[in-house]
């Protein structure tokens, strides 16, 4: 902005009219705000204001159809005694931690897709990216069939080698991990795109210098590729954790009423949905959402603190 100001301001100065120079700067100030207005207003109206409202709602109790009353911190004290929330928090943390395993997989995929001389690279990239643009409902339906205990593909394949599989998404012992696998699979395409961009930004001359110095490919990967890719890894891991904490769609779609795994496989957001929209306890649900917001903030701050130890930004 500053450089732009200077160059634009230079023109009227040449015409020797000091007043218009000032007016133009004023106008530029207006234009600046006008141009960011759609973004700021959008964020303000659709993100910040609802966030403020949610905090306010968390101190109120609602009847189903819109009358509210102030209840102070009652919702928060109730949260402390809700056993379902403790279970949902553990599930959410375990899930968020496990889906980080998708990052090394995505790095590997990105490295393969980036390999020189790979044929049909466009096709592979499309295939890996397809899950990202597929509707979650369709993803859930296909995976529910793959996981089906009696007629699913996975158990058929396991049967060929003599293993009897379970009902993967209906068995409380396996359900959470089954969803983790879907999440990792769904995210590979998106993550790989970011990693590919990161890989392409690594200067080629570093590899050349390294190979002249006698470093093998594996050594190059660990000493050059990984450190220089770390900003991308950091970015993806922050997004993955935030996404994990907000996990909802697969849990909502796969754990319907009557699924024996449902009660033990709730996440914070699926519990929020149950409280707010099935039981109509909107104030209580808002308190749960505020708690989740705080947890997300804390975890993200911790990640930003830790990044100093392992993320290398090439200067």
């Amino acid at each position, binding site marked *: 902005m500053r450089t732009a100001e200077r160059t634009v301001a230079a023109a009227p100065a040449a015409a020797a009219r000091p007043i218009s120079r000032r007016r133009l700067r004023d106008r530029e100030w207006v234009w600046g705000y006008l141009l960011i207005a759609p973004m700021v207003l959008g964020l303000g109206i659709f993100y910040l204001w609802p966030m403020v409202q949610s905090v306010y709602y968390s101190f109120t109790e609602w009847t189903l159809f819109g009358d509210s009353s102030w209840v102070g911190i009652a919702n928060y004290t109730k949260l402390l005694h809700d056993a379902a929330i403790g279970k949902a928090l553990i599930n959410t943390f375990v899930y968020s931690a496990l889906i980080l395993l998708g990052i090394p997989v995505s790095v590997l995929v990105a490295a393969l897709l980036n390999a020189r001389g790979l044929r049909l690279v466009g096709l592979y990239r499309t295939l890996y990216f397809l899950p990202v643009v597929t509707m979650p409902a369709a993803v859930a339906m296909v995976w529910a069939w793959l996981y089906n205990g*009696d007629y699913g593909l996975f158990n058929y394949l396991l049967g060929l080698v003599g293993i009897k599989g379970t009902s993967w998404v209906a068995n409380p012992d396996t359900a959470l991990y089954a969803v983790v696998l879907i999440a990792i699979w769904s995210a590979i395409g998106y993550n790989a795109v970011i990693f590919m961009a990161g890989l392409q930004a690594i200067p080629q001359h570093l590899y050349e210098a390294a190979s002249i110095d006698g470093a093998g490919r594996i050594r190059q990967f660990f000493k050059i590729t990984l450190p220089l890719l770390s900003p991308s890894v950091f970015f993806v891991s922050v997004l993955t954790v935030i996404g994990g904490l907000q996990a909802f769609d697969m849990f909502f779609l796969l754990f319907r009423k009557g699924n024996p795994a449902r*009660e033990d496989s709730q996440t914070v957001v699926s519990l929020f949905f149950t409280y707010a929209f099935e039981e109509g306890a909107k104030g209580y649900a808002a308190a749960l959402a505020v708690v989740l917001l705080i947890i997300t903030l804390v975890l993200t701050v911790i990640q930003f603190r830790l990044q100093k130890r392992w993320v290398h930004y090439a200067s």
Partner: protein
Amino acid sequence: MTGKMRALACAGALVAGLAGCSSSGESSDGTVTITWGHWGTADMWGPTATKLAQAFEKSHPKIKVKIEFTPNKEYWTKLQTAAASGSAPDVFWMNGPRIGVYASQGALMPLSDQIAKDKLDMSKYPKALVDLYQLDGKQYGIPKDYDTIGLFYNKDLFDKAKVKYPTADWTWDDVRKAADKLTDASSGVWSIGAPAWNQTHYYDTMVQAGGYIISDDKKKSGFDDPASLQGLQFWKDFLDKKQSPTQQQMTDTDPSVLFQNGKLAMFYDGSYDAVMYQNSKGLNWDVAPMPKGPKSNASIIHGLANVIYAKTKHPQEAWEFEKFLSSEEGNRIQAESGAVIPAYEGLADAWAKSMPGKNLQIFLDAATTAVPYPISKNTAVWARKEVDAITKAYTDGNQVEPIAKEFAATMNADLSAEK
């Protein structure tokens, strides 16, 4: 395009969007448009809804009906938000589990005065259903259809196992004896489906054993009643003897799908699924009354009603439409769809004859002794926990009694918290 023009275009789009939101209103020629919300699927209900609206518009030229379809899964979340913000449809479908909360919180218009004024004869509808849509002595909905439960069975599987078909005088013991013979693990056939479903399964057997689900004053849970426990245990025995697929298997593959594909010999199900089985190719089915338990063979009856939104801008027009839907003519149009049993007296016979050779009459007979679907003011709160608890009780390795008793305590707490 200059910036100014773009801003104008955006503003225009916004205004247009807002205008698009207002759903019902009065146009310049005095025609009033009312909206009618429902969740009936397009293939089964869509044409019938259109026919009903057209027939009504013909006899009421000053009123137009706009049909608003929402899939069942999103219907209640959407309706709740719309009702809170004052924009719910003028007339909409209602079910038993939700009537308590909608009526007690003032979202519905009481119809008792209009019913009295226009002399509507409520005895034309099954009493259990009329009662279902009553709260504190006021009528909030008029039943449009009903459903009861029967024992569906696969004739081919019975023949193969050389077991006689179920009859009207069957008891629980007869079901058990038949179940002992019908399971055929080698071809993946189970005797019976025992999912943790309430309306079609354990509610019925709880009542048949002499128990109850909720006390008449809606203050006490029946899940710790000894007779109720017997009714809950009925299904557990089939599960323990591996005569039914497990809860996990029935989560993966819906038991109604298993029945359609000849994997279940017997399946308790609602009258509303008869048309689905009728359309299943290669399925040789019929239906019998539910077998008698220690006390009775009573069925749970449930049915939908049309209700009027409390904040409707056109209460008079909405009432006219409600009245039409509840009328003999409205029910007749509905009967032609074949999907549901119309609530109006006498019209159900046409439905019972819609599938020749199938004993659909049992569903109509069941209605005469049926017990209303159990509800309280905020059914949704304990109903969710109930499904989770009973699902757990029906899972391998768990006992019914302790889990049901624990749930009864939870339900009692929820009931005492209702206002």
